[in-house]
């Protein structure tokens, strides 16, 4: 969502955006999470016997409770992730807004979403952890590099760790020989 902190002096715009984006984004992420935790109870099980009912939901076959959540086939495909909100605003501005918006505060304080503040002038990042913003310390790790994404996910049906896909990047971003040793390390890892 585009947002310019320079014109938003009283954080009114920030407040409206966070109140909308936070719960909606968190809702989607949590739907995936809970559907993955217990697919039969919180999700709606396999989609095979689903029967669209009254244009409001699905049930199993000809009579059952309306099913909640996501089907098994969606959870297998997408890994549940905690929502990461990166906001172009100072930690103080974010704390002020979160204090007024109870829904956002609940999500952030109870760590259902991760909130990161990027300082509009300095560019310093701070991440909200255990009740306060702490400066973000990057912990650079070299990613395994593959030429095409199938090389990375074809061998397994599990969710996979991040990898750099060379074909997805412009040639200038990935040097010809830059990550060669990492490729070997990655292969050894697998």
């Amino acid at each position, binding site marked *: 969502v585009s947002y310019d902190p320079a014109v938003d002096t009283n954080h009114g715009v920030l407040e409206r955006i966070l109140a909308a984006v936070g719960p909606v984004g968190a809702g989607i992420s949590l739907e995936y999470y809970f559907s993955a935790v217990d697919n039969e109870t919180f999700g709606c099980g396999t989609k095979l016997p689903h029967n669209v009912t009254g244009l409001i939901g699905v049930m*199993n*076959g000809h009579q059952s409770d309306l099913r909640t959540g996501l089907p098994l086939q969606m959870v297998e495909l997408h890994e549940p992730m905690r929502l990461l909100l990166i906001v172009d605003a100072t930690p103080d501005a974010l704390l002020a807004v979160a204090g007024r918006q109870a829904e956002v505060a609940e999500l952030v304080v109870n760590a259902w979403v991760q909130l990161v503040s990027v300082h509009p002038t300095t560019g310093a990042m701070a991440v909200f952890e255990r009740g306060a913003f702490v400066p973000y310390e990057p912990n650079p790790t070299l990613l395994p590099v593959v030429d095409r994404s199938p090389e990375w996910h074809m061998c397994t049906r599990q969710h996979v760790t991040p990898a750099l896909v060379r074909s997805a990047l412009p040639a200038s971003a990935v040097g010809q020989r830059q990550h060669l040793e990492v490729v070997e390390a990655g292969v050894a890892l697998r």
Partner: protein
Amino acid sequence: MSDPVHVALALAILAPFTSVAVVGLLMLLGNRRPSEETAVRLVTVGLLVSVLAGVAVLGAFWGVARAAVEGDIEFGDWLRIGDFVIPAVLRVDGISVTISLFASVLTALIARFSRTYLHKEPGFVRFFVLLGLFATGTQLVALAGALELFFAGWEIIGISSAFFIGFFHERTEPVRSSIRAFATYRFSDAGLLIATVATLEFLAPRVSRSSTRAGTLEPFQATVLALLFLVSAMGKSAQLPFSGWLPRAMEGPTPSSALFYGAVSIHAGLFLLLRVWPVLEVSPAARAIGVVVGLSTAVYAALVVRVHTDAKGALAHATLAQVGLILAEICMGWTTLALTHLVCHALLRLGQYLKAPT
């Protein structure tokens, strides 16, 4: 047996059965389940061979490249006890060729659709085994030239249908629905079984021969036979008062629901009546009852559709309404119209069922 028509007819039935037997043996004897790919390949090959054999039979029926073939094709005896003989005889005529090719093409299409639709489903291999079994049953029913063979295919369709409804056997509701359908089938299939035995008493055992000799039946005998066939057809095609199992049958996976209750299995009862039409023809009483049953089912189902809230249940009743109309058409003697109506209706419903979940 070296005659190409014999080979094609045998392949149409035996190819899906062979692939099912191979996959089934792999499941039973192998130390781990066959992979999705193995099951799909084997069953698809069986189904495709069946389709090609159907095309070859159609070619023979039309007289492509040689004299046209029509009538009974003998394969020797299935059973012989003294003078009592059950012949293994298949039949080539307009109705059997249409239904055979039609059913095999639809089954192959559903197999292709299910390959991605059921990907990673725990019952994937089981689904394809049942699909191949169903293909065997439909080919046997479509091509049978004697009531005994017809009955065998009819039962294979019934049993695979019950297994598909109870596909998710870890839940109680599908199993309950499956038993309901199975019980209805058992009750109405008794009609076909009794009719088969009665035909042996009244006539020579073949459908075809009965067609030439139906005129020699006493009116009473014809009416009894026709009513027994009608009961059997009503059960399979879910006509009143047997309609209850059809909406419950939607517990199974979507592709099998489409194939069974939209396209092929639901029309099997109508096909039976087309097959034994000569007997029906000489029994006005049975035909009158058939018209009443068909029309009342059509009215009942059309009314239910208006108020049904779930997609598959509404489709089930919409299917019933049309099937009731076709039953009435057959009983009024419009068999060609009925066959056309049947094929068009099956194609439409197949697509509608497949699209129902989205």
